[in-house]
């Protein structure tokens, strides 16, 4: 599978949006894709996650129980999902928000201070996009320009003014050199 990614965090962190931007690249590249959110009664503030599968063949099951790629943007998600990552897989941790490290040695762990990076660069609230840039760097599930294009298509016209900042956040995350644990 080209991408088998679970993104988890709090509602309002852009978890679902981040997954959607990744999913949309598959549309541009005419690949098969599914995007499956988990949802609770709370629209904001609760836990949220979404599963994105991209493949060259039909996606049999959109549900991800053993992610190859895990992105965690808060501590509860780190605790809940890190053990589920497939051996040989990878976890991306927003180290600005999660003060923990995994003991697992059979997966790659990337600790990216994405929220902090975004804030330092005047991109407050775009930590999710910074993280997506880094995911791209490490997984190469698509091309950078495809991802930029996908983001353009995911941002509604009413928020088009965010486009420039979004793109900057993506490139920032992409060029960030993580210290691999």
């Amino acid at each position, binding site marked *: 599978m080209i991408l088998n990614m679970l993104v988890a965090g709090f509602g309002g962190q852009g978890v679902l949006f981040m997954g959607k931007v990744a999913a949309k690249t598959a549309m541009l590249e005419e690949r098969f894709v599914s995007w499956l959110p988990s949802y609770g009664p709370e629209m904001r503030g609760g836990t949220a996650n979404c599963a994105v599968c991209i493949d060259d063949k039909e996606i049999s099951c959109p549900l991800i129980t*053993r992610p190859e790629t895990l992105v965690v943007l808060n501590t509860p998600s780190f605790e809940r999902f890190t053990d589920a990552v497939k051996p040989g897989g990878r976890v991306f941790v927003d180290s600005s928000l999660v003060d923990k490290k995994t003991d697992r040695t059979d997966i790659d762990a990337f600790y990216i201070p994405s929220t902090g990076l975004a804030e330092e660069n005047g991109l407050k609230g775009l930590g999710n996009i910074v993280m997506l840039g880094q995911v791209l760097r490490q997984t190469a599930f698509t091309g950078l320009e495809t991802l930029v294009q996908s983001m353009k298509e995911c941002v509604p016209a009413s928020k088009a003014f965010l486009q420039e900042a979004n793109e900057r956040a993506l490139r920032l995350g992409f060029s960030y050199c993580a210290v691999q644990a």
Partner: protein
Amino acid sequence: MSQKYLMKGNEALAEAAIRAHCRHFFGYPITPQTEVAAYMAKRMPKIGGTYLQAESEVAAINMVLGAASAGARAMTSSSSPGISLKTEGISYIAASDLPALIINVMRGGPGLGGIQPSQSDYWQATRAPGHGDAQLLVYAPSSVQEMVDLVIRAFETGEKYRCPAMLLADGMLGQMMEPVSFPDEIALPASKPWALTGTGEKRRPNIINSLYLTPSQLEEIVRKRFERYELIKQNEVLWDSYRLEDAEYMVVAYGATARICKAAVEIAREMGVKAGLFRPVTLWPYPTSQLAECAKKVSRILCVEMSMGQMVDDVRLAVNGTCPVSFYGRTGGIVPTPEEIAQQITALAAAKA
């Protein structure tokens, strides 16, 4: 058919209905189908259609009854507890020989239940969608694209046989995004000479009714309707299979569960167990003979549902004792994982060996 869109199941089905010339939607909000209503509320006013939020599910289904009797391609959507309220109207619609589309994005029950995906309304949809001798066409999509295709088919088939149709989906399909495309052109509904359009003082009044106080007359009308049901059973069954050609173990599942079972089949095969999947696409009419035929070639059947075991009744009826049928289900809004289903399949194989 070329343009692809990344859409949520609920939105895709709403768009499909609009493209299928449906211009009358009557609903009442309930999780997890609210996107359908929201999409309709946004789109309908722009295309000269009607989106009306009723005071209850009961009122909404009766508005559908009215709109359908006036000849419109009309629909409503809800989720399990709301469908219970609609069953009164569904019975009247079926008894009045009216076509209409009812969407059920199922959630966990009974009672208020939960809001996570479920398949525990199978009995309701296929056995008792309302009181009386009546059936609904029941379509069970298992992808966002099928949400689109089956909405269109449900309208067309319902009108062909003059009976209501239900799209039985679940919260997982409703919330999920997948690429979809829409047919370039969908045929306009055929004329409906029975519709209540006003006599123009040129013809005798059309009457749409479900009351027949003379038993022999009511029996005759019900029998005639069942003759149509027989035609539906002959002509409208839909099913699909996956890796069934050389399978020794057959999983039977529908809707979102069938997607998970596909992955389970793959896992089981990696473990050396030849598994395959039989997926009913129409739940009524049920692919009874097709399932019986496939059952001849396997040694064990496993029915998997997000319920305590409802469709398994139809599997057992179809197989009629020729092959052992076991059941695995999760309920209450729990979605089973491919791994736990694969384990059930391999356990069957182990039991046999």
